[in-house]
C-alpha cells in the first residue's frame, strides 16, 4: 500500500509537467491547427526565465568593508547585491531566496510576448501549408531557440534552488497513519503539483466562464462561422498562442528546482509531450491533462523494483508502448473528438 501511494505521488510531478506542456500543445493545435514542435523550447525558455531573474536580482556591486584589509594590505571588498541597498538585508535575502516563485510574475509577460511574436512572425504564414511543413519549421525554430540559450547560458545545467521553506520533505506516512518514513515526498514537488492543478483549472475556467473563452471555443469548433459573425478570431487565437506559451513557460519556471535547467531539457520533454497529446486525443484539452497524469504515474509504477525484476527496462519504454497500443486500437486517443485528425 505504501509503495503504491509513493509511486502515485512520484508520478504526479512528472505527470504535471507532461500535462502542462500537453495542454499548451493542444491549445495551439485546437485553435490554430498547428503542430508546434517548438513547444518544448518554450518550456525550456520558461525555465531560463527563472535563471535570468535569479541572476538579475542577485546582481551585486563591490563595497569596501570597514576596518578590514586583504592579505596585500588593500582595503577588503565584498560584493553586495543591489537589492540589499534598496530593501535592506533581510528583505533582500528573502527576495533572492524566493527567486523561483517570483519568476512566475516575470515569466508570464515574457512568455506571452514570445508566443505572440512567434505566432505573428512565423507560424501565421504556415496555416495553409501541410502539417509536415509546420512540423519542420517549428523543429528548425526549436533548434535555433535552443542554440541561442546555449550560447548565452552555456551547456551545463544551472542549479536553481527552491526557497528554503520548501527544501525539506513531507512525511506522508506519518500523516496518513502508516509507519513514519515510508512515504517521504519533497515539499517542492507537492507545490509543483498544486501549481499545475491551479494553472490547469485556471485555463479551463478561462475557456469555460469568460466571454473571450466562449468565443475561442466557438472558433475551435467552427472558425469560419465565427469569422463570418464579424469576430476577429485571428487576434483571439494569437492571444491563445501567447497563453499556451505562458503555460509552457510557467511549467518550466516551476520545474527548475526539480531538475536544473539545461538547454536541451525542452526537447527531452517535447518528445514525451507529443506522445501524451496523441494518447489523450489530438485537440482534446481534458484528454491532454488526463493522459499527462496517467502516463506520468504509469512511468513511475513501471520503475518500481518489483516490476523491473519481471520486465527489466519497462520504465524506459512504457510511455511509448502505451502510445503505440492506444494509437493502434483507438485512433483518436483517449478523449479525442470524432473527426479531428483521425487518419
Amino acid at each position, binding site marked *: 500500500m505504501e509503495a503504491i501511494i509513493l509511486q502515485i505521488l512520484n508520478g504526479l510531478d512528472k505527470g504535471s509537467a507532461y500535462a502542462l506542456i500537453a495542454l499548451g500543445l493542444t491549445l495551439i493545435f485546437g485553435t490554430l491547427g498547428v503542430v508546434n514542435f517548438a513547444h518544448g523550447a518554450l518550456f525550456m525558455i520558461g525555465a531560463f526565465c527563472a535563471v535570468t531573474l535569479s541572476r538579475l536580482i542577485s546582481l551585486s556591486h563591490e563595497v569596501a568593508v570597514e576596518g578590514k584589509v586583504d592579505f596585500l594590505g588593500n582595503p577588503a571588498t565584498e560584493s553586495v547585491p543591489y537589492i540589499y541597498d534598496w530593501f535592506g538585508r533581510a528583505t533582500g535575502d528573502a527576495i533572492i531566496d524566493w527567486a523561483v516563485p517570483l519568476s512566475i510574475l516575470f515569466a508570464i509577460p515574457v512568455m506571452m510576448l514570445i508566443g505572440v511574436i512567434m505566432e505573428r512572425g512565423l507560424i501565421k504564414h504556415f496555416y495553409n501549408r501541410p502539417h509536415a511543413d509546420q512540423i519542420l519549421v517549428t523543429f528548425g525554430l526549436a533548434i535555433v531557440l535552443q*542554440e541561442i540559450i546555449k550560447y548565452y547560458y552555456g551547456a551545463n545545467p544551472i542549479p536553481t534552488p527552491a526557497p528554503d521553506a520548501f527544501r525539506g520533505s513531507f512525511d506522508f506516512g506519518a500523516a496518513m497513519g502508516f509507519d513514519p518514513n515510508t512515504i517521504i515526498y519533497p515539499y517542492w514537488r507537492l507545490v509543483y503539483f498544486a501549481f499545475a492543478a491551479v494553472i490547469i483549472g485556471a485555463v479551463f475556467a478561462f475557456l469555460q466562464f469568460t466571454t473571450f473563452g466562449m468565443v475561442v471555443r466557438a472558433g475551435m469548433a467552427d472558425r469560419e462561422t465565427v469569422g463570418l459573425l464579424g469576430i476577429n478570431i485571428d487576434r483571439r487565437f494569437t492571444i491563445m498562442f501567447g497563453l499556451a506559451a505562458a503555460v509552457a513557460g510557467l511549467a518550466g519556471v516551476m520545474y527548475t528546482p526539480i531538475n536544473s535547467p539545461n538547454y536541451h531539457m525542452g526537447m527531452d520533454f517535447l518528445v514525451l509531450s507529443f506522445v501524451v497529446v496523441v494518447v489523450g486525443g489530438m485537440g482534446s484539452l481534458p484528454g491532454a491533462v488526463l493522459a499527462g497524469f496517467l502516463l506520468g504515474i504509469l512511468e513511475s509504477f513501471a520503475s518500481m523494483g518489483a516490476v523491473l525484476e519481471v520486465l527489466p527496462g519497462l520504465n524506459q519504454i512504457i510511455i*511509448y508502448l502505451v502510445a503505440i497500443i492506444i494509437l493502434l486500437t483507438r485512433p483518436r486517443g483517449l478523449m479525442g473528438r470524432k473527426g479531428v485528425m483521425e487518419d
Partner: protein
Amino acid sequence: MLGLNKKDFRLLMIVLGLTMLAPFILNPFPSSSGLAQFNAGYPDLMQRFVIFGIFAIGFNILFGLTGYLSFGHAAFLGVGSYGAMWMMKLFSLNVIPAIIMGVIVAGIFAVAVGYVSLRRSGIYFSILTLAFAQMSYALAYSVLTPITGGETGLQIKSTDSPLLSNLAEGEIGRANLFGMDMRASYEMAVGDWLFTFNAGYYIAAVFMLISFYLAIRIFRSPFGTMLRAVKSNQTRMYYTGLNARPYTLAAFVISGMYAGLAGGLLVAMDTQVGPERMFWTASGEVVLMTILGGAGTLIGPVLGAGAIKYMENILSKINKDILHQWFAFLPDGLEDFIITLVYPFIGKGWHLTLGLIFMAVVIFLPGGLVEGGQRIKRLFSRKKKPGDDEADKASQSTPAE
C-alpha cells in the same frame, strides 16, 4: 544506358565523377595556406559524406515519394550497425558479410515497424516511428546491454576471434575487404597539396553509387509513380481500386534497408557502434539533410547530407583565434565588433546556423537547395530568352482538382 534516360544517365555520371575525384575536389586549398581548414578531403569526413548520403537517399525514397515523415529513421541505421558489428565479431572481418547482415537486420526490423506504423498517417505516423526509435534507443541503452554493449557500445576487441579470420592470439582484428585494410590509404603529394585516396572511402563510394542508381530506377519505375500517387491523393487511389498499404510498406522497408546499409558501412569504417546512433536527434538529422537538399529530388538528399556533414566537421572547428586571423586587416575596434557578430554562428554554435538555414529553406525554398539552384538557373536563362517563361509556366502547372 543502364536503363536510364539521357538526363538521368548524365546525372549518374556527374555523381560518379564527383565521388571518384572527391579527394581532389574537396582539397582545393594548399595545406600551408590559411584556407586549408576548409579542406574536407580527409578520409574520415569523405566516408561520412557518402555514408550519410546513402542514409538520406533511402529516407528520401520514403519521405520524398510517399510524403510519410518518419521521425525514427535512425533506429534502422543503429540496428543495421549492431547487426554488422556482430557479424564482424563472430563470423568474418570481411566487410561484405557484415554489410549484408546490416541490410538484412534493418530490413526485417523495418518490416515489423512499418507494418505497425503505416496503419496511421500524418503526424501519427511521425509519432509512432519516433516512439519505436526511442524504444530501441532506451532498450539498447539499458536492458539489451549484453547484445548492444549498453552505453559503451561495441568495439572489436582482442578477445574476439571471428570464425573465418585467422587472427593470432590477442591480435585486434581490423575490418578488411578480401584482405584490403579499410584504413589503407595512398597519399599523393603534388606541390603543396596532399591528396589522400582511402580504400574505405572508395568502397563506401561504390556502394553509394549503386544505391543512387537503384534510387533513380525506383524514382522512374511504375512503383515510384505509385508512391507519388500515395503522396498526392491516397483517397483517390483507394477509389481506383488500389491498396496503398503494400506500396508504402515496400517503400518503408526499402528505405529502412538503405539505412541499414549506411549503418553497416559506418561499422565497416570505424568498427564501433553505440546506442546514441539511434537517438531521435540522429533521426532529426536525416530529416534536416533531406529537406535541406530537396525532398523528392534525386540529388538533393546527397547534397543535404554533404552540406550538413561539412558544417558539422569544418564550420564547428573555427574558433575565435582563427577569426582574429581572418579579420586582422581591420582596425581593432571594428575587428572585435565583427567577430562578436559572427562568433555565435560558427564554432560550437554551428547548430544555430544550421537551424537558421533550415528554417529559411522550409519557409522560402520548400524544394531545398535543388530548387534554389533551379531558380537561379531559370533567372539567368529567362534573361536570355523571354519566350521560355511561358514554357516554364506550362510545365509547372498542376492538374486541376
